[in-house]
C-alpha cells in the first residue's frame, strides 16, 4: 500500500459515536427540483411511449402516417421524436431526479445552487419542447439520437455544464468524505456525455436550423456510433446503475452485495464500453481493424455489465420475501434482470456472424427496447413508486394498481420483444435465403416485409400495453401526491473535518493500480509498434496484467489500512480525472487514426465527384424526411447483399457524405446503388404513392414534394459550408450552382413530361429524384463517363 500512516486517520464516513465530539451542520435537502424532474419524466414518458405506439402503428398500417394532414407526422419525422423523447426526456428527467435526490443524501449536502437546479430543470424542458417542435418540422442533423440541430445542440451543452457545475459543486461542499459507488457512476455519466455530445455534434452551421457534420463518410459513421453506442452506455446505463446502487438497497433494506465487485465492474465498464461503438458497423466498408476492436470489446464488456446485475440481484437476494409484496421490488428485480438480458444479447449481436443476420432487422429493435422499456423503464417506475410517497409523506395510493402496472409493463415488453425477435430473425433469414441455383429465394424486398407485417401489429399491441401501464402509474402517483404534501427533509450531520495530512495526490496517481494501467497501455502501444511475435507477447502480457492486476487489487485484504481505491474515493477531482482518462483512451484509439490518415491510407484514393447542387438539395430533402430511418446506404460484404442491392459499398462511395447516411435499419431496401436502377417515372410514382409500384409497401407517400419548390439561390451557402469541411466544390461550382440545378432539373422534368407527368423543374420532387439517381454513382471509376455526360444521370432516356 502506498499510504502514509497518517492516512489512517481518515475515516469520517460514519456518524461519530457521540455527536458532541464534533460540530454538527444542519442541512435541508433540495427535493423541490427532484419532484419537478419526476413530474416531467412522467409527462414525457407518456409522450414518448405514445409517439412510440403511433410509429409502431405506422409501420403496420401506413395510413397512420396521416399524410393528408401534412408531412409532419410521417414515420421518418416522428421516429426521431420517439427516440429522443424516450431517451432524453423520459429517462433523462428520471435520471436527473434520481441523481439529485440520492447525491444530496450520499454526500450529505444540499444541492450546490437552487438557481442552477432550476435553470437545469427549465433549460432541459425547453430543450425537449424545442425538439418536439423542430423534429416534426424536419429540422434534423440525421444522426441517430443526435438529430437536434445546432442551436439546440449548443443549448444542450450549456445546460449540461449547468448540471455539471451543480453536481460537482455539491460534491465540493460534501460532508461525507468518501464517494459511494453511485456517485462514481454519476461522475462517469456527466463527463462522458459531455465529451460524446460535443464531438459528435461538431457541425458547420449553414442557416439558423441547418448544418452539416464536420465529419464525412466512414469518419462520420465511426464518430456517430462511438456516440450512439455510448449514449446507451453513459445516458441509459451508468446513471441508472448509480440509481440502482442507491434505491435498490434502500427498497430491499439489504446491504449492497460487494464493494470490490463495484470497483472492478465500474472501471471495467467505463473503460471498455467506449471501444464498442464499431459493432454497429460490422461487415461494412469500415476498416477491418476497427470492426475487430468493436466486436472484441463488446464481447469483453459482457462480464463487467453482469457485475452490475450481480450486485443488484444479490442485494435483493437477501430479501426475496419482500419481492412478493412490494411492487417497488418487483420493478427493480425485473429491471435488473432485463439489464442482464440486454447486456448478454448486446455482446452476442456484436459477433460478426450474428450481426450479419441481425443488423438492419427488427432483432436490433427488440434489443434496444429490452434495454429501454425493460431496464430503464422498470427501474424508473420502481424509483417513482418508492420515491413519490416519501417525497410527499404518504403511502402509495394503490398498491394493486402498481401491481397491475408491473404486469402490464412486463407482459407488454415480452410481447414486444418476442414479436420483434421473430420478425427480425425471420426477415434476416429470408433476405439471405438462396435457391439451389444461387438466386435469391425472395427476389423482392417487399415479400419479406409482407411476411413479417402481422408481427408489426402484435408489437403495436405490446407497446399499447406498456403505455397503458404508464397511464395507470401516472394516475396512481397523482392520487398519491394529492393525498400528501411536499416533505421538507432536514438532517443534522457532522461537519467534514479537514484532513490535516492527506496522502499527496501524486502518491495516488502513481499508486499501484495506475502503474498497472500505465504498464498495460505501454504494452498495448508496444503491441502495435513491434513485430508479430513480440507484439503478440506484449498483447498477451498486457491482457494478463490488466485482468490479474485488477483481481489482485480488489482482493487485497489489508489489516485495516485504507486501500488505494478507498483513498481515491475521498478525492473527487482525482477520481473524475481518472474516469475521464479511462473513457478517452478507447475513443482516441479508434477515432483519431481515421481522422489523421490520408485518403490513400484509408483506401479511398479513387476519384469521387461530389453531388451536383440539385442532388445536394435532394439529399437535404432525404435527410429532412428522415428516409435514413428505414433505408440504409451500406451494402455489406455478403454475396446475397450484392445480389439484392448491387456492388458492395466502399469508403469512396460515401466519402463526401456529411453526414453519412449508412443507416441502421432496413424497413425498406438498401439504396446505396439506387442510381440508374429505375427510370425517373418509377421514382415519381413511387414517391407519390409507394403502393402504386410496390404492392404492400408500408412507406409513407410524399406527394407534397411535387408541389413544393427548392430555393435554388440557397444552395451556394450549403456548398460553401461543405467546401470548408473537405468537399471539393470550387468557386466556379458554387457560382454556377443555380444554372447547374436548373439544367439538371429541366432534364428530369422533361423526361417526366415525355412520360406524361408534369412537375416543376425546381420542385423538391425533382431534386429528390436527382439525388436518388446519383446514389452509388459518385465514384468516377464506376461511372467512367466524362463529367459532362453525368449531367443527366439517366443519359438520353
Amino acid at each position, binding site marked *: 500500500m502506498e499510504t502514509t500512516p497518517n492516512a489512517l486517520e481518515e475515516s469520517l464516513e460514519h456518524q461519530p459515536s457521540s455527536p458532541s465530539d464534533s460540530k454538527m451542520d444542519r442541512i435541508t435537502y433540495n427535493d423541490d427540483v427532484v419532484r419537478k424532474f419526476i413530474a416531467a419524466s412522467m409527462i414525457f414518458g407518456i409522450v414518448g411511449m405514445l409517439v412510440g405506439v403511433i410509429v409502431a402503428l405506422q409501420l403496420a398500417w401506413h395510413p397512420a402516417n396521416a399524410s393528408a394532414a401534412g408531412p409532419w407526422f410521417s414515420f421518418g419525422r416522428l421516429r426521431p421524436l420517439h427516440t429522443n423523447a424516450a431517451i432524453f426526456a423520459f429517462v433523462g428527467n428520471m435520471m436527473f431526479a434520481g441523481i439529485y435526490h440520492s447525491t444530496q443524501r450520499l454526500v450529505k449536502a444540499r444541492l450546490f445552487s437552487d438557481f442552477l437546479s432550476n435553470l437545469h430543470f427549465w433549460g432541459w424542458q425547453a430543450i425537449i419542447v424545442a425538439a418536439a417542435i423542430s423534429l416534426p418540422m424536419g429540422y434534423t442533423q440525421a444522426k441517430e439520437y443526435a438529430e437536434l440541430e445546432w442551436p439546440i445542440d449548443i443549448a444542450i451543452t450549456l445546460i449540461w455544464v449547468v448540471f455539471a457545475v451543480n453536481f460537482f459543486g455539491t460534491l465540493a461542499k460534501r460532508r461525507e468524505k468518501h464517494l459511494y459507488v453511485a456517485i462514481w457512476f454519476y461522475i462517469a455519466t456527466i463527463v462522458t456525455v459531455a465529451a460524446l455530445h460535443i464531438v459528435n455534434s461538431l457541425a458547420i452551421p449553414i442557416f439558423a436550423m441547418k448544418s452539416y457534420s464536420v465529419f464525412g463518410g466512414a469518419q462520420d459513421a465511426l464518430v456517430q456510433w462511438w456516440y450512439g453506442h455510448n449514449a446507451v452506455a453513459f445516458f441509459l446505463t451508468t446513471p441508472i446503475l448509480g440509481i440502482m446502487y*442507491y434505491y435498490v438497497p434502500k427498497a430491499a433494506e439489504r446491504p449492497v452485495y460487494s464493494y470490490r465487485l463495484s470497483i*472492478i465492474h465500474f472501471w471495467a465498464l467505463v473503460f471498455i464500453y467506449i471501444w464498442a461503438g464499431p459493432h454497429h458497423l460490422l461487415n461494412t466498408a469500415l476498416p477491418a481493424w476497427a470492426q475487430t476492436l468493436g466486436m472484441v470489446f463488446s464481447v469483453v464488456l459482457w462480464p463487467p455489465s453482469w457485475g452490475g446485475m450481480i450486485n443488484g440481484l444479490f442485494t435483493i437476494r437477501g430479501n426475496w420475501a419482500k419481492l412478493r409484496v412490494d411492487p417497488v421490488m418487483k420493478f427493480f428485480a425485473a429491471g435488473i434482470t432485463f439489464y442482464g438480458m440486454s447486456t448478454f444479447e448486446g455482446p452476442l449481436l456484436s459477433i460478426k456472424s450474428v450481426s450479419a443476420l441481425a443488423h438492419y432487422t427488427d432483432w436490433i429493435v427488440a434489443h434496444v427496447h429490452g434495454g429501454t422499456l425493460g431496464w430503464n423503464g422498470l427501474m424508473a417506475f420502481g424509483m417513482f413508486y418508492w420515491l413519490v410517497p416519501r417525497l410527499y409523506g404518504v403511502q402509495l395510493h394503490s398498491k394493486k394498481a402498481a401491481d397491475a402496472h408491473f404486469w402490464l409493463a412486463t407482459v407488454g415488453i415480452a410481447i414486444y420483444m418476442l414479436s420483434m425477435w421473430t420478425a427480425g430473425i425471420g426477415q434476416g433469414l429470408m433476405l439471405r435465403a438462396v435457391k439451389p441455383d444461387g438466386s435469391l429465394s425472395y427476389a423482392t424486398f417487399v415479400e419479406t416485409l409482407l411476411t413479417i407485417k402481422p408481427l408489426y401489429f402484435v408489437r403495436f399491441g405490446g407497446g399499447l400495453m406498456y403505455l397503458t401501464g404508464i397511464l395507470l402509474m401516472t394516475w396512481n402517483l397523482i392520487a398519491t401526491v394529492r393525498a400528501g404534501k411536499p416533505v421538507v427533509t432536514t438532517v443534522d450531520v457532522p461537519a467534514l473535518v479537514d484532513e490535516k495530512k492527506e496522502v499527496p495526490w501524486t502518491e495516488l496517481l502513481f499508486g499501484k493500480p495506475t502503474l498497472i494501467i500505465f504498464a498495460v497501455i505501454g504494452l498495448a502501444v508496444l503491441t502495435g509498434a513491434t513485430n508479430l511475435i513480440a507484439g503478440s507477447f506484449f498483447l498477451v502480457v498486457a491482457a494478463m496484467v490488466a485482468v490479474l492486476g485488477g483481481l489482485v487489487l480488489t482482493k487485497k485484504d489489508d489489516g485495516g489500512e485504507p486501500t488505494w481505491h478507498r483513498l481515491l474515493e475521498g478525492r473527487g477531482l482525482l477520481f473524475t480525472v481518472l474516469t475521464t482518462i479511462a473513457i478517452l483512451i478507447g475513443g482516441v484509439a479508434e477515432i483519431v487514426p481515421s481522422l489523421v490518415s490520408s485518403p490513400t491510407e484509408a483506401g479511398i484514393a479513387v476519384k469521387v465527384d461530389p453531388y451536383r447542387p440539385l442532388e445536394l438539395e435532394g439529399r437535404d430533402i432525404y435527410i429532412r424526411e428522415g428516409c435514413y430511418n428505414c433505408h440504409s446506404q451500406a451494402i455489406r460484404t455478403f454475396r446475397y447483399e450484392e445480389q439484392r442491392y448491387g456492388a458492395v459499398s466502399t469508403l469512396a462511395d460515401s466519402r463526401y457524405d456529411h453526414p453519412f447516411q449508412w443507416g441502421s435499419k432496413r424497413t425498406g431496401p438498401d439504396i446505396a446503388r439506387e442510381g440508374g436502377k429505375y427510370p425517373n417515372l418509377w421514382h415519381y410514382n413511387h414517391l407519390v404513392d409507394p403502393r402504386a409500384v410496390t404492392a404492400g409497401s408500408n412507406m409513407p407517400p410524399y406527394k407534397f414534394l411535387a408541389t413544393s419548390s427548392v430555393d435554388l439561390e440557397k444552395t451556394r451557402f450549403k456548398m460553401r459550408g461543405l467546401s470548408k469541411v473537405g468537399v471539393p466544390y470550387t468557386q466556379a461550382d458554387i457560382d454556377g450552382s443555380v444554372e447547374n440545378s436548373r439544367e439538371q432539373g429541366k432534364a428530369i422534368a422533361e423526361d417526366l413530361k415525355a412520360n406524361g407527368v408534369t412537375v416543376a423543374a425546381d420542385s423538391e420532387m425533382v431534386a429528390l429524384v436527382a439525388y436518388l439517381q446519383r446514389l452509388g454513382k459518385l465514384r468516377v471509376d464506376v461511372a467512367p463517363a466524362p463529367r459532362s455526360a453525368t449531367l443527366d444521370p439517366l443519359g438520353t432516356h
Partner: protein
Amino acid sequence: MSTKAPATARPPVVHTYDDIIEEDNELPKWWVGTLLLCTAFGVAYYMAYSMYGIFDNPDIAFEKESAITRAKEAERLKAEGPVDKAALLLLSKDSATVADGAQVFTTTCAVCHAANGGGGIGPNLTDDAWLHGGAPDAIYKTINEGVTGKGMPAWGPQLGSKRVKAAAAYVITLRGTKVAGGKEAQGAPFEGD
C-alpha cells in the same frame, strides 16, 4: 478500515452511506472465470484476425467467397447449355416454362410493364417496337443484365438464370400481341427472329 468487522460467518461490512450498508463479498467464481475467458477470447480473436491473418476479415472473406460462387455459377451456366435464340424459342413453346415465366412477370415486371405487358413506366412489350432488341437472346440479355442508366434493373443476380429464362420465354410469347390500351411504340421496329 476502522469499521471493518472481524472475519465471521457474515461477510464484512466495509462502509455505510446514508444508512446503506456496503458488504464486501467475494467475487462469484463463475463471474471471474467468465471475465478471464472473455478477455482471453478477445486477445486471441484480435491476434487471429488483425495480427496473424489466420482468419479472413469480412472484406477478404467476401472476395474469396465471391470468386468461388462466380466460378460455380459459370460452371453451372455452362452445364445448362448456351442461351441462344433457338433454345429460348424452344422454351417459349413449353407451356410449363411460360407459366413459370408469367408468374415471375407478375411479381417483378408487371409494376413497370403492366400486367398484360402493355407498358407503363417501362415500354410496351406487346408491340413490334423494341428499345433494346426484340430477338429472344436480346430479351434475355436485357432482363439478365439490365440496361444501365435506362432504368431497367439487372434481374439476373436476384432471379437466377432459370427464372430469367422463364421470364424471357414469357415475354417472347407477348411479342406482337398488341394488347388494348398499350403504351405507344418506342424504339426500332422488330424485324423477326
